[in-house]
């Protein structure tokens, strides 16, 4: 979200810069730009009309929708900006941390089995001790999804608890894939 906000701010500032340059060009009459050619009268009249409508409470539905939408968007962006970022490392206990990459490697080793063709693991550190682990594993079409899923879940849970990594949320998603399109083609 911080990256998104940064992009928005960059675009906004770039827009303001372009507007500023144009304002200078038009006001000085450089390179054929003339202030008189700009439809400022129409714009200012529309703006005055819109503000007057707001003051009198006589808003058009579209204006009202636009105002509500911008307020809602601003609120959502504000909440995301105020939300503290997720920590980089997984907290195991007070004063002990492990990198997300190390947790990912452990989980990937636990997932490996003949029925799993390939897997990817995403680990998110949380403010409290523990990690949020999302496992995505590919299996052959026709495999027993239920038992494979519970097997993968058990193995990951066991491996991480052996290491001492608390897992607050473990999600395993299985997708059926063509073995010819996965890393482990022949077993």
């Amino acid at each position, binding site marked *: 979200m911080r990256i998104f906000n940064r992009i928005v701010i960059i675009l906004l500032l770039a827009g303001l810069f372009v507007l500023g340059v144009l304002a200078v060009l038009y006001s000085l009459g450089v390179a054929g730009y003339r202030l008189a050619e700009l439809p400022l009268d129409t714009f200012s009249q529309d703006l005055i009309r819109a503000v007057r409508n707001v003051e009198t409470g006589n808003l058009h539905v579209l204006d009202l929708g636009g105002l509500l939408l911008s307020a809602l968007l601003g609120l959502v962006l504000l909440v995301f900006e105020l939300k503290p970022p997720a920590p980089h490392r997984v907290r*195991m*206990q007070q*004063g*002990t*941390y492990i990198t997300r990459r*190390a947790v990912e490697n452990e989980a990937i080793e636990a997932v490996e089995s003949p029925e799993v063709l390939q897997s990817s693991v995403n680990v998110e550190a949380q403010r409290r001790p523990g990690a949020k682990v999302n496992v995505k594993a590919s299996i052959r079409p026709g495999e027993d999804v239920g038992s494979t899923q519970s097997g993968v879940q058990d193995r990951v849970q066991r491996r991480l608890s*052996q290491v001492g990594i608390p897992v607050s949320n473990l999600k395993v998603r299985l997708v059926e894939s063509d073995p010819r399109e996965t890393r482990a083609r022949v077993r």
Partner: protein
Amino acid sequence: MADDLQLARSVSEAVLAIGGVHSLGTGRYAEAATYGAGEKVRGVVVNPREVRVHIVVSYPLVEPIPALAERIRQRIASRTEDRPTTVVVEDLVKVEQDENL
């Protein structure tokens, strides 16, 4: 500063002598080290608020990581001058059995 470097060196030696610690880590987003004049100690960050030790753990584990971290804290407690110790596990490295002997 020189004291910090000396402390970092002493912590580094003590941590590397602990069973289960494969090596000291170097940091992921920024180099984890204590700097001095023309010298640096990698894997130990000493600052006025804490002593942070970055380690790479040997696998198979001799004990769960929280227990290993506790052992590290106990081992270096006398050297850290009451500063809290943070242990960061950067990786787990598989070691052959005879490498442990």
